[in-house]
């Protein structure tokens, strides 16, 4: 029904997703650095949350101690025990709940992932299921956190003069194996992604831009508002360029500064054999864009496409 394949465009992070309607959608893999950054943000958030909670617990315990006129023996054991339980359960819930609840939400991303603009999705265009999210988050523990904690403990043991032997190297190898795992497959999957059947993609984000053919000289059939000249390009002038150049011109008209437009103007004039004037570049380019697009789209309707100026 649906599958994912490499896009013909050749970008190494581009994939194509086929929706159940049979529509091919381009999808972009998240870069590995963005994912590492997102994880760091998440860990910082979790750790600061836990630290704040720990301080709160200490503050409450301090208050209880103060209530007994600073005599630790008179403190109620029940209170301390209760605080201990609250802390232990809080740590457990935050550690696993933070990732689970957020990735199961409609955004499919933790706060860190949202900040860097990525989200998780099911591989092979399937539905993202709670099981998949649980599996990928349980695996994170052995990939990163257990080896890091174990290495820290070993370092402390070594500092205090104990012999740790080969164990440090074994752990480092394990850590490196999982850390480098995403670099040894095309989709940048980590072990958790493999087991859960998920991957991490860039969150699509595009705003609807203005209609170029409804503004400036394009809307006024090639007439410049500045000089009143009407630009009208002949068949030969319009058959120089193809779709690639058209879309480059579109991008420049949308967000390039006037100086860049001057250069483009000069190039186009040279190419189509016009004498480049000055001062009315934008109107010229708008008119050229509208007429070139009208011609290329007209050909397109008859099944004739011109990819770029070389074809």
């Amino acid at each position, binding site marked *: 029904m649906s599958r994912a394949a490499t896009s013909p465009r050749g970008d190494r992070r581009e994939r194509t*997703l086929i929706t*159940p*309607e049979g*529509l091919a*959608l*381009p999808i972009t893999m998240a870069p590995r650095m963005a994912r590492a950054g997102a994880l760091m943000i998440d860990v910082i958030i979790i750790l600061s949350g836990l630290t704040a909670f720990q301080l709160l617990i200490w503050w409450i315990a301090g208050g209880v101690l103060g209530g007994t006129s600073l005599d630790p023996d008179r403190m109620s*054991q*029940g209170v301390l*025990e*209760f605080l201990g*339980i609250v802390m*232990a359960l809080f740590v*457990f819930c935050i550690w696993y709940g933070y990732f689970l609840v957020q990735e199961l*939400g*409609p955004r*499919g991303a933790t706060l860190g992932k949202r900040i*860097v*603009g990525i989200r998780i*999705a099911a*591989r*092979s265009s*399937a539905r*993202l299921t*709670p*099981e*998949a999210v*649980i*599996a990928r988050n*349980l*695996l994170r*523990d*052995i990939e990163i956190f*257990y080896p890091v904690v174990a290495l820290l403990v070993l370092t402390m043991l070594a500092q205090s003069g104990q012999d740790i032997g080969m164990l440090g190297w074994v752990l480092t190898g394990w850590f490196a194996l999982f850390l480098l795992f995403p670099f040894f497959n095309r989709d940048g999957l980590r*072990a958790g992604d*493999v*087991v*859960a*059947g998920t991957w991490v993609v*860039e969150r*699509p*984000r*595009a*705003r*609807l*831009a203005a*209609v*170029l*053919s*409804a503004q400036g000289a*394009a*809307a006024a059939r090639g007439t410049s508002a500045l000089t009143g000249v009407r630009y009208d390009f002949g068949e030969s002038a319009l058959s120089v360029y193809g*779709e690639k150049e058209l879309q480059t011109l*579109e*991008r420049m008209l*949308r967000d390039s500064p006037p100086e860049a437009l001057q250069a483009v103007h000069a190039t186009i004039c040279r190419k189509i054999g016009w004498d480049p004037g000055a001062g009315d570049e934008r109107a010229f380019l708008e008119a050229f864009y509208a007429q070139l*697009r*009208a011609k290329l*789209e007209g050909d*397109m*309707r008859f099944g004739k496409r011109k990819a770029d100026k070389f074809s």
Partner: protein
Amino acid sequence: MKAPVISSWFGRGQVEAPPDITSAALRSDRFRLEREGDWKRLEAIIVRMEKGGLRRIADDDLIALPALYRTAASSLSVARETSLDAATLAYLEALVQRAWFQVYGPRQGFVRWLRGFLLGGWSRAVRELWLDIGIALFVMVAGAVAGWLLVAQDEAWYYRLFPAGAGDPRVPGASREQLLATLANEESAAGLAGFAAQLFSNNSAVCILAFALGFAFGIPSLLLLVHNLALLGALLWLFDTQGLVVELAAWLSVHGTTELFGILLSGAAGLHIGRSMAFPGQLPVLDAAAAAGRRAAVVMVGVVIMMVVAALLEAFPRQLVEATSGRFLIGGTMLTFWLAYFILYRPAGAAGDALALPEAG
């Protein structure tokens, strides 16, 4: 990576009025102007869904969502064949993709999933792992026997398995009274709740480790099972030297039937993943691993619940009930309950179907 668009966090709500349709010189732009109202409406609905779920969306919008999604999808197909406006194409591709994530997103929230999980999904997932559970059970029994035999042959092994338990009376050569004292109950419940919370964190971490290690073809999961059960075997041997093995079994059975069952399931879940990666059968390795991983994850959520139960049992009834028969009764009841839940409980209803895993592919 796109730079985070800060302006998108603040600059909401400034929607320009679309230009007059007739002012557009191009046919493809007229096509776009005629439909962009629907696209913008779809985008607004999607943004609200991403923010806060379905509750904040008006019924009309929710009913219109599938139609709007198909409109946008068909607009994209048409635009690809008729329009050369790169910005519109990019917008439509992003819009359809975002809508696809919502329309074909997770069908159920966490609460509904949990309900389906308790009412049938969990026990079915456990039954699907029957072969791995059998293998893990065999390995655990073998581990316990190995632990017993090792220590029986050479007492030095005991100290290697339980390193440096200073002050712990449970060492070879301890008297019967000393050992019996370690099995005695506590005077009151004080301190036990904290003990339970500690046990829970610790045991869950061990189980999650056993599961996650399955990724390395299941071998480390099995080693972890062997190690844990070898400890148990050594302990059994120690108490057997003083003829206390029945008392120890009773003491352990209170929580052990639940806890060991949980460890068995997590080891089996890890093994399941490892086995499906080593022998993927007809599927590609990645698909086989993904299907097994999702099945095993269901079992693992159940294991965490079992660990909560085990920790409570370990902290309270085990320390408060002293009679051997009473301890056996509690442990046996729990074991019967779990077995009945996993093997006999087979509801045939919608609640279970909600969890049915889609075939990978």
